[in-house]
């Protein structure tokens, strides 16, 4: 396992591996330096690696480098590059005809305002990279949108890629569904904390178990089909058009979901990884 911090998730994986008598070696990403041309003659790694870096850039670049050595990384660099980027996720899911919120792309304040007039207010501006609801901004009307876009014009160029999504009318919760390999293993409802319209539990909302309905399962399996088998936390929103996929997380957090659902998510992740070890 490669990590940059041991969150409760990584601790659960370590403890679960110990109980299963599985050999799980730990690699601190900050202590790794790779020779990119000499594939694996020095710094040997295992055949299968669980990539658990919180940093998207670390995760993506390390995974791509390790894959060239013939190592199976969970999740793959293809999954990381798509799921770590909201725009690429949207394109893949749209191509697979998976229901998602309408979204537009623009690169200047003027075009972003035009995009908004086509999408309608209110809408949501999201950074294409980043998570935990960071810098996600509701756009209520032209004035507030202008103010937010002007703000972004002074930020890192990444934040001038305007990914604007329609605001979905929905209950103050979303559904997080866990996929391991090609199977749906559990789902939870995540409730938005008071005074916050986002539902990311990292920001302090609470969770409740959710029955994996046929609709959830079908959507989740379509996602796997589009992106390949792996370990995912798929976020769905309950809209009047049915469930819409909002986000596909590829280094998914499950600390609150294990007690809420009783499902041994870390154990299942390890079993999936172990099934990839060459015999």
């Amino acid at each position, binding site marked *: 396992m490669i990590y940059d911090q*041991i*969150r409760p998730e990584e601790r659960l994986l370590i403890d679960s591996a110990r109980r299963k008598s599985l050999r799980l070696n*730990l690699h601190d990403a900050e202590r790794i330096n790779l020779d990119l041309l000499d594939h694996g003659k020095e710094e040997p790694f295992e055949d299968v690696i669980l990539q658990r870096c*919180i940093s998207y850039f670390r995760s993506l670049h390390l995974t791509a480098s390790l894959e060239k050595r013939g190592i199976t990384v969970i999740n793959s660099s293809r999954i990381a590059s798509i799921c770590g980027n909201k725009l690429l996720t949207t394109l893949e899911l749209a191509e697979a005809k998976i229901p998602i919120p309408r979204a537009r792309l623009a690169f200047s304040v003027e075009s972003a305002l035009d995009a908004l007039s086509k999408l309608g207010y209110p809408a949501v501006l999201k950074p294409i990279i980043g998570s935990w609801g*960071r810098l996600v901004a509701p756009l209520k009307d032209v004035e507030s949108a202008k103010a937010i876009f002007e703000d972004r014009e002074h930020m890192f160029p990444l934040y001038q890629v305007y990914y604007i999504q329609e605001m979905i009318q929905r209950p103050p919760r979303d559904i997080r569904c866990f996929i391991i390999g090609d199977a749906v293993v559990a789902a939870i409802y995540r409730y938005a904390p008071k005074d916050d319209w986002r539902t990311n539990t990292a920001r302090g909302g609470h969770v409740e178990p959710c029955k994996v309905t046929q609709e959830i399962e079908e959507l989740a399996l379509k996602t796997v089909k589009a992106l390949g088998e792996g370990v995912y936390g798929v976020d769905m929103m309950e809209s009047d058009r049915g469930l819409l996929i909002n986000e596909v997380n590829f280094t998914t957090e499950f600390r609150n979901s294990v007690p809420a659902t009783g499902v041994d998510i870390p154990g299942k992740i390890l079993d999936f990884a172990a099934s990839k070890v060459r015999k």
Partner: protein
Amino acid sequence: MKGKCPDCSAEIEIADDSIEGEIVVCPDCGLELEVKKDATGKIELRQITIEREDWGE
């Protein structure tokens, strides 16, 4: 092992198998702290102050 919260000075129990980078939460003030080892191998708790832009799940 025991550590000290840099903010409220509460004493925090650190599991013996803790590794560098491990996150512990101060039971008194709720602060998220990271386990760090100094050059002599002594354990220290440091406040996680930055949430980097590419961080997430």
